[in-house]
């Protein structure tokens, strides 16, 4: 019986499908419980309790929400383009999930180990903008189109800063493959991570990531105080839920990429630090637990930002992206070039 299962698993298509399911099911569960944690965390930060009615301590809240959204009616606005109206959320979720194909979870744990992994992720996030644009245009609503224009301009602007920040990482690691980027940070524990030589790029990457995903304090896409709910104002039921899902999947993607590219991914912060005397114990070994905990830090930051910062004004967002972030990244790319040339230890000595 076991042999049969193993032989079925050897078929390439089945093998890939199993891996896809193994990535997507935990991801979607994380998304569901991320919404719950978000409400809880922000609740506690604002001295409230947050959801606590459905199930023990409110643990079943995300499932109840999902059921509610699934059984709600999908309303098509009059004059809406039906085909594009449905394609828009599909595009948003499919790009948000497709980007996970190249994310490695361990030295050998990756679905598609391709050379252009980083560019592929950038391509997927830039296609994700079309979900927003299509949604706004197909809704035939002026509020939706206003928000679409805002969002698209914002995302396209911050993509540039983000791309420049990643150029620094690529220069340091000499590779676009994410697995190789992580391995480039190995060898000296927490000091070997790229967040130290690339600190400005690290900060800019994460802030741009927050702007990319249209989260507070850059959430003018759905700034409730100004433009109702943003590009998905006409969406209801499961179609709205899909947009919601895509947004959270993108947040987790940004977090996991920050952990992989700047904080050594699955590498232990205590690895190869001889004076701690951990040797090859569990704490010093690399494992997926490190990756998950580092990702969780960034996911928490998303919530923390939302609970504490007031919303940026739109012209300030644009100024920050174009006039502050892009110049800083360009200057720091030069600095990285100098560090590279001087073979600064321990980051630039390999290879």
């Amino acid at each position, binding site marked *: 019986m076991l042999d049969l299962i193993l032989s079925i698993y050897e078929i390439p298509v089945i093998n890939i499908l199993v891996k896809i399911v193994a990535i997507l099911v935990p991801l979607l569960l994380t998304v569901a419980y991320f919404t719950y944690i978000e409400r809880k965390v922000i609740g506690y930060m604002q001295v409230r309790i947050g959801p606590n009615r459905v199930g023990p301590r409110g643990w079943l809240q995300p499932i109840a929400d999902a059921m509610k959204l699934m059984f709600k009616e999908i309303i098509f606005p009059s004059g809406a383009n039906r085909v*594009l109206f449905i394609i828009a959320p599909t595009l948003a979720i499919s790009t948000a999930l497709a980007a996970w194909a190249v994310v490695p979870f361990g030295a050998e744990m990756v679905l598609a180990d391709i*050379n*252009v992994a980083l*560019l592929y992720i950038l*391509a997927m996030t830039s296609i994700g903008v079309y979900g927003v644009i299509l949604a706004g*245009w197909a809704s035939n609503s002026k509020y939706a189109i206003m928000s679409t224009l805002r969002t698209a*301009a914002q995302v396209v602007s911050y993509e540039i800063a983000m791309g420049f920040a990643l150029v620094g990482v690529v220069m340091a690691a000499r590779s676009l493959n994410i697995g190789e980027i992580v391995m480039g940070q190995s060898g000296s524990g927490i000091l070997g991570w790229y967040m130290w030589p690339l600190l400005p790029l690290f900060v800019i990457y994460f802030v741009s990531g927050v702007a990319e995903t249209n989260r507070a304090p850059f959430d003018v896409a759905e700034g409730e105080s100004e433009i109702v709910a943003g590009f998905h104002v006409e969406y209801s039921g499961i179609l709205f839920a899909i947009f919601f899902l895509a947004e959270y999947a993108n947040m987790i993607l940004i977090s996991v990429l920050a952990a992989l590219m700047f904080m050594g991914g699955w590498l232990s912060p205590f690895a190869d630090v001889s004076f701690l005397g951990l040797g090859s114990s569990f704490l010093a070994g690399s494992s997926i637990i490190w990756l998950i905990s580092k990702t969780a830090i960034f996911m928490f930051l998303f919530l923390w930002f939302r609970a504490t910062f007031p919303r940026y004004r739109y012209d300030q967002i644009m100024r920050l992206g174009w006039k502050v972030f892009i110049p800083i990244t360009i200057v720091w790319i030069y600095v990285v070039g100098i560090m590279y040339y001087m073979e600064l230890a321990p980051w630039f000595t390999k290879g």
Partner: protein
Amino acid sequence: METILFYVFSTFMVVSALMVITVHNPVRAAFFLVLTFFAAAAVWLLLEAEFLAVILIIVYVGAVMVLFLFVVMMLDVNIAELKSGFVKNLPIAVAVALAMFGTIYFVVGGNQFDIHNFVPPARHAADYSNISELGKVLYTEYVFSFEIAAVILLVGIIAAISLTLRRRPNTRHQKVEEQVAVKSTDRLRVVKLEPKERK
């Protein structure tokens, strides 16, 4: 398998390119152009040019077409007006199209680009990196033309910005540096008030 994929994506590309020029709605035309770029990227992937394929998607699909759509969505294009000159301009358009087709046929058609004249290129090994090969060639052999291209692009950027930049002295702009430099004492004055004696 590769041949089938090639034909699938090329058909996709040709059909969506045709749709770009035949659909009436300009926004739909722009979306079909996006689809065309996609198919082109897929064909490039089949040619093992993964870097170019992904860059095509990032630059053209992710940036250029977004700006196109911006303009098209904001403009109120009158379709009837667009179609009005169709019959009048048809003879010239046909003549130009035929001339271009003839030129292309003259160059590409016939025997010299026949598939049988070429050996199929060898497949590269799995560790072959399209990016590093491209980088090596670009920064050694063609570094001069690469830099010229960069300078031309820079000139283009500066020209575009200076064209749109017009000084309007009467408008009230926000002075960002003043906003950033402001202190609480500039905006807020704490006044000490003696309580009034009740009579």
